[in-house]
């Protein structure tokens, strides 16, 4: 398996070159920044939740590597329509997948196209790129304005 099979597949490259849900979200109800000071990746994630706390719309903006951008694009595609609990469930599954664990086939099925990022676990330095904007959505839903990949990965920094 090569890096083009495991990471830089057409789907990922497509989403990194032309990310979906990219841009502002004027009627956002929740927002958070996600940044990874080690890579210099920096994103702003915005969500619009309805009165039942369902994510009705989502958008992101910022700059970073192909993996972080593609992951954000695919993730927002998937989370629109989910409740907060459903997002957290999906995040756990995705996190397990990119960390090299094998979630149940049903769980993976829920990830849909996001399963394309499953090969990332072989590149430990890049896992945090894949989950950066997930942390930002998590923070936004929790009412925090900021998420840093370094909080979780502080021990293997530098």
């Amino acid at each position: 398996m090569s890096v083009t099979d495991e990471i830089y597949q057409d789907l990922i490259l497509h989403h990194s070159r032309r990310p979906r849900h990219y841009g502002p979200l004027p009627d956002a109800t929740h927002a958070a920044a996600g940044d990874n000071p080690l890579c210099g990746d920096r994103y702003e994630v915005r969500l619009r939740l309805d009165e039942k706390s369902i994510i009705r719309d989502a958008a992101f903006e910022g700059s970073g590597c192909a993996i972080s951008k593609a992951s954000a694009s695919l993730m927002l595609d998937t989370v629109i329509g989910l409740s907060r609990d459903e997002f957290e469930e999906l995040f756990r599954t995705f996190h397990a997948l990119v960390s090299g664990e094998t979630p149940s086939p049903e769980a993976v099925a829920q990830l849909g196209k996001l399963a394309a990022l499953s090969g990332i676990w072989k590149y430990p330095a890049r896992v945090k790129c894949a989950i950066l904007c997930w942390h930002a959505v998590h923070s936004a839903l929790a009412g925090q304005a900021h998420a840093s990949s370094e909080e979780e990965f502080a021990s293997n920094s530098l």
Partner: protein
Amino acid sequence: MPCWTAVFLLAMTNNSTSDVLLPATIREQFACLREGGSQPPLVYLDSASTALKPDGVIAALTDYYRNMPANIHRGLYPMSEAATAAFEAARATVQKFINARESREIIFTSGATDAINLVARGFGDGLRAGDEVLITGLEHHANIVPWQLLRERRGIVLRVVAMDAQGDVPLDAFRAALNGRTRLVAFTAISNALGTELPVAEMIESAHAVGATTVVDAAQAVACRRVDVQKWNCDFLAFSGHKLFGPTGIGVLYAREALLQAMPPVKGGGDMILSVTFERTTYNELPHKFEAGTPPIAQAIGLGVATEWVTALGFDQIEAHERVLVDAALKQLEALPGVQIIGRPGKRRSIISFTLDGIHPHDVGTILGEDGVAIRAGHHCAQPAMEHFGIPATIRASFSVYNTLADVKALIVGLRRVQEIML
């Protein structure tokens, strides 16, 4: 001399660039560069992070652990005496390597970072609120953060002299930043992020003219040029063993003896004392006053061997070799569409930072890694320097004694493949 001879000689020197390269047989001394060493073959362009270790250094570590694995400065039996002698011989080797006057001016630390922190504590804590510490915009975090911590402890003023658009620190700007309150000036001899070489001797002379004490971060310098603390006339100098083909976990703080005598110890423990009662402790003499606890014995011995190894290669040859490689790499990088060279210093050592249009450095690093090409991607622990150029990260290629023109070629071929995949 008839003029045709001159022309002939000139022609010879001109097209004999390969003649100034060190023999490629050097590579035989590095396990991961040897035939069958790594798959795919390793193209190591990250020596500014850490240098590869020649067999001789690894053998020295093994020799200590196998044949004299005793503690030093305490045992009365032959094995301990042998270890003590080897450890102190390494100190003398390092002393010669940087041309210090006395071996007691060589303090073994765990690395350059540890050495700079020792200065910040031992010397810096003697400063007072309002005293100024001057650094440059090129510094590694290891030469920024200790001074910020000192600012918190002592209320000193930390001033930064900016680099210019090329990535140089102009001497006149540096001089303008000095004043009667400048107590300490700390700067890197060579920038690990851009490759800039600073005019060390001139900067030290100017700093001394206002009465400031000087710290040179020689972490990058020691492996690629002759470092002579007496010629530079610096007061402190810090470097790490691992960037000098030596082991990790060992570094050096050089300091003028008078400064070390005046400084209080920073760490307390065994070995740094002469006598201890609960009322009173008498500190050991130099250099032991600053080496509390069991030091990295094997690593110090390994560092001694590494410095002898580099010295035997010869810095004239090393400089010429790295010049050929860095010039070739610059030329070939510039010919590649989409490459932006970051920093155009007047004097560059064997480090090149660059970006590829439209591709994040980390994606470049991952893809090149698959080809066996090891480069560094990121901010290189010099975020302020990156900010100066308005970018979060660069791709950095650094060249050392074991690199060849084929490595330069492999980098360029690899970058083309990155562009094919990503663009």
